[in-house]
């Protein structure tokens, strides 16, 4: 970074010799200073921006220079210098933000000419979030974009989907990231502070220029560039404290004993410790307190940017040190970026983007720590009398020992190098070519010491894995904007690209390390055979786009991409992805002039396009033999479980989008409304193959999913006064995904297809994705005699006399003397204390035929409300978001209430409510009859409403007045307090209703995870 400072200074010095200093203030029509307005010297790259008080200083070469002033949402203004040294400007609001230029892939376009559904997110919007990762930056910002923050775990990644899933695999449902032109870059590698703008391309017509990988939308990220002028130095620091947002009640020692009594009703001694002096079983722990702590995160940013006439530079460095909620969980991260733009002449430009990241974390095992806190009886001790930690007690791990002693280190380096050359043959004909190289290297080290061992005698174990991926990309394209007169504008783009990627990984596990103080795999007694994997794929593409606009009123865009992928069969490797879109700016029509005072701008858009998906295994189209089938010292070779299909071809998605953009009240309010209908065809689908062939499945192009959705976004400046402004962004999205066709029209159950307790999902034609499929629990039989039904399988009511003797049945209050039928489960007759399952097929057995759809995991809608209020030097922003109407299968609670092994203790409410003696009316079955008749089948007992409303982000900033900061030679400085996940309204009982479930076939199962943090922080930023 220092190097670039030096490199740029000679240029500025030489420029200073003969330049004139111009100063001034930029204000808006209401007299408020405009910060970050651009002041450019016309026909040059040289310029500056205004500070928070609207003040600017610029050096111009001579008196003939013309200054161009511009800012977001205003009409740019030109000013000749003349003999003035102070130029104050009042910027007029632009007729509309329609003049904003947005990035659309291999080029830019004016917003007015866009015919697809694109939402732009500015650097300012991101800054208000204190974003740690891209998900923070995106959450709630755009309609149709569902961002789910993964967890409170340091270094965790999140899930982002655009307009719902479109295919059956989780990888295939992630959007495509394009960072500074690099297609398929990893969104998690970017430092949100470096982002200048984000464009979310939602419909097929917008995204199809990226063809084969655009089926789930595209997120285009443009990073910041240096602005010519004096170097700008930015420094920020944030310290952030996190707390367990939601503590759960767990069975205490007394309740554990009560559970034991109910578990063995015939054993008088149950629940009492045989050895009352044994310290091992007489504790009463609060594990959540013991295992968690206040999380602390430090985040420091430093950046230098600036430039001269020929060279612009932007550099940034970020360091994050995060100590998580769970003891000993931590993550550290360094991200660095350098953007250089060299422009020796008006025709030639050379750009370099260099990005480097390093992250390391201790990936705490959630199953063995946080889940174990609930599963382990609270009366088990955590410490021996001598103060040392216990290990494995009666089959349960000590979560504290696991957190402190288990090692799960992950580190990762990633680097990205991007070079681009641009040459303008003519003013309106530009050739761009670029080359990118991406490199990623990861290494995991795991170790579980003897204290955590369940072996007898104790044994340690561990392993190492490493993973390397490399990729290169080459792109070349031409942009041509022929001049066709005042009323017509035409732009053309054509180009090609090629890319190749390679991934190698290896892993080894070992047991019985000689010494636990150093984790060296070569010290292990047993080293198991290493696993190696390697694969590569390549993609070649041709693409083109044409855009035509008449008077800016009628617009037509069309693009086409022709992609070839190595992943498909020889005859099907190429796919064609065409689109067309049209826009009509009806507000410009004469017949709409009457509405001008209200309607500043209004536009209809319609688009239609086809995109593709190729995210499958690299060699699914090849029949191949694999290794690892060892027998008696010989390494066997055999077909794998999936059949290689040489006919494999592209999955395609066809999407129609209609939308409307309105700018109202002099651009104070802008509204975007979109409706879409997208259908995936030829799903890349793992079809089950008749098992008798020896194969399990074959990847085929089969089946289809249709999603229809509606989106609404409003951006309003409610108040805009000199000292007070209030801006609101609100959005609402809803969609519904339906499976249209499946292999052989056959339904199947994804997940748990047996009668265990985990969730299962029914996937069927004309059914929704996310349909939970299991048994409906109607209650619990109060008496043995309650399991009685008439010929129509309607339940009879047993009656008893005063002495408790059964006297007979009644039906609808009338004595019943007909046939009495009973239900059976797992071969046994159901009795008092067993769950009454809905007997769908009206036979005498509760079995697979009695399953039904119990609820759906897809939200009915999701929405967000973002407010930004400024008063004098204060600025407050806060975001609410909500997801509504989805069901969650609380598998974490199910695991407890299923007490599958001796020392798993159910939730307290379950212990109290469990059926215990004839006559008990409850919905919790008898504890001692867990397995006998299948009471623990997946049922709606654990299905909960996942709706929530959350105050997800809030930040209050105080910007120091510019006259004050001048005393410390700074341009701007601010301090702020910040909070995230501050308030949540939900009925969901486990830690958090917001968690990603990426597999579209298995949505909405909460297996218990690292708890979410509630964060508050304080920070400062300064720039020079």
């Amino acid at each position, binding site marked *: 970074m220092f190097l670039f400072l030096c490199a740029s200074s000679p240029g500025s010095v030489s420029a200073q010799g003969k330049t004139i200093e111009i100063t001034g203030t930029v204000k808006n029509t209401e007299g408020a200073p405009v910060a970050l307005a651009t002041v450019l010297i016309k026909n040059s790259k040289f310029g500056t921006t205004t500070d928070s008080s609207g003040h600017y200083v610029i050096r111009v070469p001579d008196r003939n220079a013309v200054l161009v002033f511009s800012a977001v949402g205003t009409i740019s203004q030109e000013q000749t210098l003349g003999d003035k040294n102070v130029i104050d400007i009042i910027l007029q609001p632009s007729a509309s933000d329609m003049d904003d230029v947005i990035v659309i892939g291999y080029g830019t376009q004016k917003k007015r000419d866009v015919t697809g559904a694109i939402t732009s997110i500015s650097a300012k919007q991101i800054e208000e979030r204190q974003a740690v990762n891209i998900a923070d930056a995106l959450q709630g910002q755009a309609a149709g974009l569902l961002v789910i923050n993964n967890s409170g775990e340091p270094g965790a990644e999140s899930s982002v989907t655009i307009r719902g899933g479109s295919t059956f695999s989780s990888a295939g449902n992630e959007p495509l990231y394009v960072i500074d032109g690099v297609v398929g870059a990893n969104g998690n590698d970017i430092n949100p502070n470096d982002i200048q703008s984000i464009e979310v391309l939602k419909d097929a017509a917008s995204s199809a220029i990226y063809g084969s990988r655009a089926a789930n939308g595209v997120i285009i990220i443009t990073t910041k560039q240096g602005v010519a002028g004096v170097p700008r130095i930015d420094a920020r620091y944030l310290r952030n404290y996190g707390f367990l947002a939601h503590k759960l009640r767990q069975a205490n020692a007394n309740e554990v004993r009560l559970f034991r009594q109910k578990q063995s009703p015939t054993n008088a001694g149950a629940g009492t410790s045989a050895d009352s002096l044994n310290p091992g079983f007489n504790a009463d722990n609060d594990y959540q307190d013991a295992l968690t702590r206040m999380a602390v995160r430090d985040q420091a940013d430093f950046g230098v940017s600036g430039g001269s006439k020929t060279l612009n530079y932007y550099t940034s460095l970020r360091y994050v040190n995060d100590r998580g909620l769970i003891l000993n969980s931590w993550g550290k991260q360094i991200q660095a970026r350098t953007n250089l733009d060299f422009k020796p002449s008006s025709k030639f430009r050379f750009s370099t983007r260099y990005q480097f990241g390093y992250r390391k974390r201790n990936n705490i095992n959630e199953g063995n720590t946080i889940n174990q806190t609930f599963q382990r009886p609270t009366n088990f001790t955590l410490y021996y009398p001598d103060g040392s930690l216990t290990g494995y007690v009666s089959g349960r791990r000590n979560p504290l020992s696991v957190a402190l002693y288990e090692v799960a280190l992950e580190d990762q380096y990633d680097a990205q190098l991007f070079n681009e050359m641009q040459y303008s043959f003519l003013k309106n004909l530009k050739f761009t070519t670029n080359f990118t190289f991406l490199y990623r290297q990861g290494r995991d080290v795991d170790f579980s010491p003897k204290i955590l061992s369940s072996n007898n005698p104790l044994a340690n174990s561990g392993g190492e894995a490493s993973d390397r991926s490399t990729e290169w990309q080459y792109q070349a394209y031409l942009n041509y904007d022929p001049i066709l007169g005042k009323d017509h504008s035409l732009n053309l783009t054509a180009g090609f690209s090629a890319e190749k990627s390679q991934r190698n990984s290896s892993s080894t596990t070992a047991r019985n390390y000689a010494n636990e103080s150093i984790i060296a795999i070569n010290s292990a007694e047993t080293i198991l055979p290493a696993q190696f994997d390697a*694969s590569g794929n*390549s993609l070649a593409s041709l693409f083109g786009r044409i855009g035509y606009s008449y008077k800016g009123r009628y617009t037509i865009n069309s693009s086409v991409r022709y992609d070839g992928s190595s992943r498909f069969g020889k005859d099907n490797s190429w796919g064609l992805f065409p689109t067309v879109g049209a826009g009509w700016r009806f507000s410009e029509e004469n017949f709409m002039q009457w509405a001008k005072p209200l309607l500043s701008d209004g536009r209809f858009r319609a688009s239609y396009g086809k995109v593709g998906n190729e995210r499958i295994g690299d060699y699914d189209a090849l029949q191949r033999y*694999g290794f690892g089938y060892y027998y008696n010292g010989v390494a066997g070779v055999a077909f794998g479980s999936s059949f290689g299909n040489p006919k494999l071809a592209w999955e395609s998605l066809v999407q129609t989008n209609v939308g409307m953009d309105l700018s109202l009240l002099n651009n104070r309010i802008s509204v975007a409304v979109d409706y879409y209908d997208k259908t995936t065809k030829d799903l890349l689908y793992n079809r089950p193959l*008749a*098992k008798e062939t020896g194969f399990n499945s074959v990847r085929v192009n089969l089946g289809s999913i249709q999603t229809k959705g509606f989106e609404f976004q409003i951006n309003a400046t409610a108040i805009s006064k000199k000292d007070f402004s209030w801006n609101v962004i609100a959005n609402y999205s809803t969609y519904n995904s339906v499976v249209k066709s499946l292999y052989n029209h056959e339904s199947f159950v994804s997940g748990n*297809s*047996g009668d265990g307790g985990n969730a299962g999902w029914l996937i069927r034609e004309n059914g929704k994705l996310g349909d939970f499929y299991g048994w409906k629990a109607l209650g619990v039989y109060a008496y043995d005699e309650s399991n009685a039904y008439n010929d129509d399988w309607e339940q009879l009511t047993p009656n008893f006399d005063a002495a408790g003797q059964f006297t007979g049945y009644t039906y609808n209050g009338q004595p019943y003397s007909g046939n009495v039928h009973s239900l059976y489960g797992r071969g046994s007759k159901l009795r008092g204390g067993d769950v009454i399952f809905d007997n769908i097929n009206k036979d005498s057995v509760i079995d697979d035929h009695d399953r039904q759809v119990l609820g759906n995991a897809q939200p009915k809608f999701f929405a967000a409300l973002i407010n930004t209020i400024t008063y004098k030097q204060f600025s407050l922003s806060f975001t609410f978001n909500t997801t509504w109407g989805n069901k969650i299968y609380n598998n974490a609670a199910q695991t407890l209430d299923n007490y599958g092994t001796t020392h798993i203790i159910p939730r307290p409410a379950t212990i109290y409510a469990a059926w215990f003696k004839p006559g008990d009316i409850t919905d919790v079955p008898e504890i001692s009859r867990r397995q006998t008749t299948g009471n623990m089948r997946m049922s709606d007992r654990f299905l909960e409403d996942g709706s929530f409303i959350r105050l997800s982000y809030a930040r209050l900033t105080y910007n120091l007045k510019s006259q004050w900061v001048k005393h410390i030679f700074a341009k701007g400085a601010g301090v702020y307090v910040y909070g995230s996940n501050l308030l949540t309204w939900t009925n969901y009982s486990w830690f958090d209703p917001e968690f990603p479930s990426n597999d579209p076939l298995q949505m909405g199962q909460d297996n218990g995870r690292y708890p979410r943090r509630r964060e508050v922080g304080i920070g400062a930023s300064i720039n020079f």
Partner: protein
Amino acid sequence: MKKIFKTVVILTASISLLGGCTKFLDEKPQTEIGSTVFWKSEDDIKAGIAAMYDGIQSIFDNNYTLYGDARTDEVRVGQYGNISYGMNGLTAGITGSDWTNFYVTIQRANLGIKYIPLVKEMYQPGIDQKAINHYLAQCYTTRALCYFWLIRLWGDVPVWTEPYEDINMSPDKARTPRDIIVDTLIQKDLERAASLSNPSLNNVFEANIGATCALAMDVAMWKKDYKAAVDWYNKLVALGKYSLEPTATWKNLFIAPASTKGAIWSVFWDWTVDGGADASTLIGAGNTNSDFEVEDSVWDYWTTTPADIRGPQTIDFNNTSHDKILKFYAPNLDAKGKQLYPNGAEANILFPIYRWADVVLLRAEAANKLNDPVTALDLLNQIRARAGVGIYRADSLDNQVIMEDAILSERKLEFFMEAKRWFDLLRTDKVIEVMDPILKQRQAETGSPEVGWGDPRTILWPIHGNVLNANTKLEQNPPY
């Protein structure tokens, strides 16, 4: 004009570059072998055959116990197992109802049968024909073993005698009647194997000639063709390789079969490459309670018959919940003299498939059926004497029924948890006779109506829902 020319040049260059794309887009697997470059050498044959045995490992890994013992009077289901096995309550989703691993093994045998001769014919003519024959014999025997288990567990099953290699061929096949499978496939395979097998190659972990003959004898017994069973027995005797393992080294049949005279065919296991044998978690692993517990009849007999050397070498008398079976593990005692069990992930079980005592008792059973009680009694008593328990007097087993029961009882003890008992009951048509009272007792314990075994059709296993859904021509076994 010059610029337009440049543009044209660039575009032409781009298009010609795409012409080279066919090559650019040709990616070869890096850690697997394309199907066209395998089966070219004797090493490939060995690798293919190892993978076939790996298939047998997958079949037995967890389900050995479920198929052969779980539904019998050897064990009952403990607190952590699925009660359905003990209550004749199998369902189409239950573990074991998926037959895929049998067909994976059949596929690998079929690949061998198809390609092994071609290796010699086309690529490596120098391979000794005797070696080729012996490889083929192993494939035929393994295929016969798979189908023999399939037809006994599910009845009629689809038949594949060639590998599925062409996506244009229909992968769906209907079920073939089981008698046809026995007569036209299993028996033919075994006869072919017997003629191809090299008797001097005698690896106990492979489908050697002894394995072929023992399996053929078992098939004949299943068909109630006792004369044929005796013929196969005589062929086995003629090999001159096998005899009853002495009392002192009886345990070696399970922990070191290669060192014995009595082991015919066992499955090799090495957890470091094969993973732990999952059956250990059902019957005895160090890190978990077992799914199954020893039935009282067996527990009481052995704990009160100290003379029987098999008892303490089969079940763990120290285990109060009766759920640890130590038969398959070498003695490994802690300081208090209690057996230490491996974790499920580190357990080796050398699953016995056939051993000499099995052949001897089958011969006794055949002799009994052929009205030769003298031979039957003699053979039965050989086993009893070896176990250290008193021999039967001829007058105590004085009719065919009593003799058969005595043989079956002996088999229950001798082969406890060796996946024999269920098939013994099936072969002798005694499932319902034996299991009815036991089920009634279990039903009484759970407060259910004492209906006993129930529907006789539930002797067959249900077909797993995933298996049914994957093949449109399959129909479920009624009444499931």
